[in-house]
């Protein structure tokens, strides 16, 4: 076995071990499994959030966009920063509500706030449909990373099957705590890989970052300002996209749910303050994509630019290290996505629709069964229906972002009406689907999901105002 293979297999095995070990001696009820008993301090919350935010997209998509599209890739640096800023103001209130009412998931929030089981089911279904492609994206990315990282010795499909079955195992045993602990391995390896390669390749090939940019400006003058090499992604597109994805970020069911794991509001606020700094390593990932464009022009798939450049620049064992880091970078988000998809399906769809009398122990057993069912479905999808990386993510974002008005209005505006939020959500999803699948994205230069979100908000606020006309503002009608 070569050093590269040993590093890849060793990392995957160690991650699975740590993940399973993290849940030892814990009584696994739904509270411990999905929200870690609401006992996470700043370190675990940070690991969890960093764990789900830094996905294979960080490795492959961001550098791929830098390579293929140029400046529009900057949006990735921006939207996370906006999301953390919003989270500072929104999450503490959400956490408090979750603590008071024992909420586990995003649909739980909608049911509690708006008193509508139907709304909860709709939110759960949209959430699951958005999570599945995102989960599949992690697996497709994992396969690609390990295949290139092992120089073809481990075929993509074998890597996906091995790593994902182990991921399902630690989700099954340890729940959210497993994901947070595996994040330790993931973050150390990924930051090391990104720092070494991000500083390394511009220096090795050009003698420094500044010189690399000078060469790129000379060769492709428009690549580094909007719209770069993607004419449909001009400034207006970037602005609407970062607003959409910044607002949509915490609307992902798994990221939303993670907020409930914190021990206190203080932890959530502190985490929101420091998280933007964790965006800066993405800058280094972009350097790799830009350098690759100069050193390896004409790659068939831009998403391979990071790994191809590492392959050209470094010895095979280091390529193996990057492959291993990439694999665990896919495993952690995949585990959290799987956990929340399973809980949503068991608790917010099955229990809510078919078996309202089911006790928590039964929901817990069912959630675990769903880990296996959804895991198998995701495996089939990624083995037989793989797709391009970033587009999937953007479609998913259009969907989950439509929860934003319901969440923010529900938390901060007492007159918000259930009917308004429900109607806004339906309008938002409909408009996003029509525009995206009708190939009208971008629409008038704007991100189609943003157009949908704006209409959604107008409908939600409009109907709420209409229904509340003539009535004085009530004291805390929903949240309480």
């Amino acid at each position, binding site marked *: 076995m070569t050093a590269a293979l040993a590093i890849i297999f060793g990392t995957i095995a160690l991650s699975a071990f740590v993940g399973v070990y993290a849940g030892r001696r814990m009584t696994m009820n739904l509270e411990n499994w999905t929200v870690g008993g609401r006992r996470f301090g700043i370190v675990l919350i940070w690991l969890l959030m960093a764990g789900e935010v830094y996905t294979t997209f960080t490795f492959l998509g961001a550098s791929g966009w830098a390579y293929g599209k140029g400046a529009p890739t900057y949006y990735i640096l921006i939207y996370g920063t906006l999301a953390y800023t919003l989270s500072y103001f929104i999450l503490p209130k959400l956490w408090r509500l979750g603590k008071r009412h024992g909420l586990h998931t995003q649909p739980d929030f909608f049911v509690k706030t708006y008193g509508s089981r139907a709304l909860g089911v709709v939110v759960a279904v949209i959430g699951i449909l958005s999570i599945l492609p995102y989960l599949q994206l992690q697996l497709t990315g994992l396969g690609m990373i390990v295949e290139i990282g092992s120089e073809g010795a481990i075929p993509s499909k074998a890597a996906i099957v091995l790593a994902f079955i182990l991921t399902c195992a630690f989700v099954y045993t340890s729940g959210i705590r497993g994901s947070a602990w595996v994040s330790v391995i993931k973050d150390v390896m990924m930051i090391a890989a990104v720092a070494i390669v991000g500083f390394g390749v511009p220096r090795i090939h050009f003698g420094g970052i500044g010189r690399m940019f000078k060469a790129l400006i000379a060769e492709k*003058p428009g690549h580094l300002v909007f719209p770069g090499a993607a004419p449909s992604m001009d400034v207006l597109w970037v602005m609407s996209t970062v607003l959409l994805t910044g607002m949509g970020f915490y609307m992902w069911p798994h990221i939303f749910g993670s907020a409930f794991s914190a021990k206190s509001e203080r932890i959530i606020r502190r985490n929101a303050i420091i998280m*933007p700094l964790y965006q800066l390593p993405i800058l280094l990932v972009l350097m790799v994509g830009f350098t690759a464009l100069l050193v390896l022009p004409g790659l068939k798939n831009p998403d391979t630019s990071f790994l191809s450049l590492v392959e050209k620049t470094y010895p095979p064992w280091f390529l193996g290290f990057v492959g291993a880091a990439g694999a665990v970078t896919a495993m952690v988000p995949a585990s959290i996505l799987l956990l929340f998809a399973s809980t949503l399906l068991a608790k917010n769809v099955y229990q809510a629709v078919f078996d309202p009398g089911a006790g928590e122990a039964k929901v817990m057993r069912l959630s675990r069964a769903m880990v296996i069912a959804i895991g198998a479905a995701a495996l089939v999808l990624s083995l037989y229906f793989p797709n391009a990386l970033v587009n999937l993510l953007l479609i998913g974002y259009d969907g989950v972002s439509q929860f934003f008005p319901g969440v923010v209005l529900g938390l901060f505006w007492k007159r918000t009406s259930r009917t308004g939020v429900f109607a806004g959500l339906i309008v938002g999803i409909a408009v996003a689907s029509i525009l995206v699948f009708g190939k009208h994205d971008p629409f008038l230069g704007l991100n189609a999901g943003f157009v949908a979100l704006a209409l959604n908000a107008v409908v939600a606020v409009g109907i709420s105002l209409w229904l509340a006309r003539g009535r004085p503002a009530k004291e805390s009608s929903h949240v309480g």
Partner: protein
Amino acid sequence: MRKWLARALGAVPFLMLVFALPFVNRVEPIILGLPFVLFWIAAWVALTPLALFLADRVGRKNRPPDGPEDP
């Protein structure tokens, strides 16, 4: 009052990283080796924790330091 000051600080990243973009979409001047627009974005990403830290300091004055917040 303090609440609104905190929210105004929270608006700074949105002003700089969204609404300022049309005005900074340039390669020149190159700063620290980065094209200007990329430098601008990276700088404001790095400054956002400072804005949030200040918002936290301002907003925290009406909360006990370690107790439950915004009761």
